[in-house]
């Protein structure tokens, strides 16, 4: 069974639709959303409608820090553009959509897989996994064979050595990487809606549960439309430029 992993959509409808279409072409039957559905982008309501439909069909859902900030007043941990986007986002959503965000769990578990937005070690602290020690800590806390997360916008794969050290790997798009169950793994799916590695193409990954392989994908989408919507909404200019440059 192929499970598509979508993280950090950030209200980018064009990127989400491109990735959903790509995942369908790849034969993905199930979907997991790894948090930060909204924030930064100009289409929070439309994105939430797509995601709620997927959730109703059984998609795995977890909460991101931007999702949490929209439903909790007085988020003071964010930078100014993020905060401006959070305030604006709140005004775009209706009660049902806000209730949906508020109900998202911090983690979800399916068999030997743990889904979490940031680190599995105290997930509500939103710790970024930038390096091997951070990854090792998350895997240790997860008590799972596979940990799938987002938060960091660059795609990454870590595996644990027998000594318990995490070893980082920068994936190549489109390659099915064996991730057998006798080791422990942590994958960062990369950001659907706000890639930051200099490549504008949206990021996501597919986990093949039967074959135990993980394939990272990059999907080009029409960022000019998404950026134009950000400008039209009066959101910070910086957020539009990011999509145009993928940084």
């Amino acid at each position: 069974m192929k499970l598509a992993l979508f993280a950090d959509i950030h209200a980018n409808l064009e990127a989400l639709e491109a990735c959903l279409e790509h995942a369908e072409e790849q034969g993905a039957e199930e979907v997991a959303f790894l948090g930060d559905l909204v924030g930064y982008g100009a289409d929070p309501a439309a994105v939430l409608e797509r995601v709620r439909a997927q959730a109703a069909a059984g998609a795995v859902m977890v909460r991101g820090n931007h999702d949490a900030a929209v439903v909790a007043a007085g988020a003071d941990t964010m930078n100014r553009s993020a905060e401006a986007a959070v305030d604006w986002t709140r005004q775009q959503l209706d009660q049902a959509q806000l209730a949906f965000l508020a109900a998202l769990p911090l983690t979800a578990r399916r068999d030997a897989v743990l889904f979490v937005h940031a680190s599995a070690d105290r997930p509500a602290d939103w710790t970024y996994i930038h390096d091997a020690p951070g990854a090792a800590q998350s895997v240790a806390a997860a008590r799972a064979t596979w940990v799938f997360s987002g938060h960091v916008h660059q795609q990454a794969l870590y595996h644990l050595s027998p000594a318990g050290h995490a070893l980082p790997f920068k994936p190549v798009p489109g390659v099915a990487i064996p991730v057998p169950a006798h080791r422990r793994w942590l994958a960062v799916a990369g950001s659907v809606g706000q890639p930051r590695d200099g490549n504008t193409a949206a990021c996501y990954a597919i986990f093949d549960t039967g074959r135990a392989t993980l394939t990272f994908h990059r999907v080009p989408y029409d960022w000019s439309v998404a950026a134009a919507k950000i400008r039209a909404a009066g959101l910070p200019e910086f957020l539009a430029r990011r999509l145009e440059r993928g940084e």
Partner: protein
Amino acid sequence: MNTNLQPGDLLDGFTLGDQLHGGGMGIIFRATPPAGRPELDFPLLVKVPRLGPGEPSETVVTYEVEAMVHATLSGPHVPRFVAAGDLAVQPYLVMEFVEGASLRQWTGKGPLEAAEVARLGAAVARALHALHLQEVVHLDLKPGNVIFRPGGEAVLVDFGLSRHAHFPDLLAEEFRHPMGSGPYISPEQVLGVRQDPRSDVFALGVILYELATGRYPFGAPTSQRALRHRLWHIPVSPRRLAPACPEWLQEVILRCLEAQAADRYASAAQVAADLTHPEQVTVGERGRRLRRPGLGTLLKRWIMATGYEPSPLDRPSQQLATASIVLAAVATRHRNEQRFQVLREVVKRLLAIDPDRRLTCVTVIPPASELAGGREEEAGTSLRIKHLVRLRNWAEPLELPPERISYHVIESGDPAAALLEYARVNQVDHVVIGAPPADVPMKSSFVSTRVAAEAPCSVTVVRPRAGSRES
């Protein structure tokens, strides 16, 4: 898990045959395929790792790495991969049994003649390049891991220590001591760097040295401390140990053995090109030296080695792209300055991208026998020289240093076939060739048309801009 397999046993439908080898890491059997697999019409072997209590954990990981890497490889330079068993149930690998001679048959007999060293070395270099093009670095190249098919093609085996750039390195940090074989391991591997294709070029240099002199350039150390010696040490000149070793061969060997990867050949294909065309090797101090440099130089190298920094590299293809071989097909029989000029401009731009790129200039002329009657040999030689001169003249404006350029006049009645064969054998990455004149009706028999259709690499077909004045 059955650790006591015998001939006659069944393994997922494969029947085990005679035991071929029972080494430290595992057992190798001949095997016959299950019924209903007619595509497996070649000899098979099954490799079963020794796992379980008492065996080193390294064996499990090297088995896993070998299964993962070998499954992705194809082409004549690796045994055909057939199947791998589930690690949790019964680990085993099924692959083509390559019938042929191990390189060990020659390394024990050194010093060998230069022509023989070059023939064997070029075959290994071509196999290595084929591996590197598939994003894999072997990292355990040694005579025991090379088999020659009856046709002379080298086959590389045992990918247990290999690195595939598309997969996480399961061996990274796994074992603190350097992995590899003492005589052949590269300086950067001693330091734990496992992704540079030039590490295999170093091991190839050790093999060439061994074939040419009968000795190892850095001995056969095992301790980390002794292995570090090669970070700064300069081996005894091959010509001192084997006076018959020509300067060009010493130049090739010592260049492969440079401590810094950046000072070695940029690709195995470039080693193959030099070993195949000794007359084109630019011999420098390395090739001529008989004595090792003085203490001052060694001390300087030792000090530099203490701060040895392996170059960062994402994947083999990144390195190979900087080292590509560009072939310019120059029609020296049809001298047309304007067409020459256009060809040169395109070649110039391709070479400007990276200083490690090499140019090989090729022209095809009819065989001498088709030209002259009785004195064909003499006529042939002078004709070859005439075209060689034209090739050199064509390339002069490019102002390339001699080590970046070579010239080849090929005699053949079928220019397209000759160019294609040359490109294939010499692992050319990019062919640049002139288009037929625009006013001639299109035919599929044009040399450039056939080369573009059948070449094993990129082909750029160039033509002067329509409307520009023919000179």
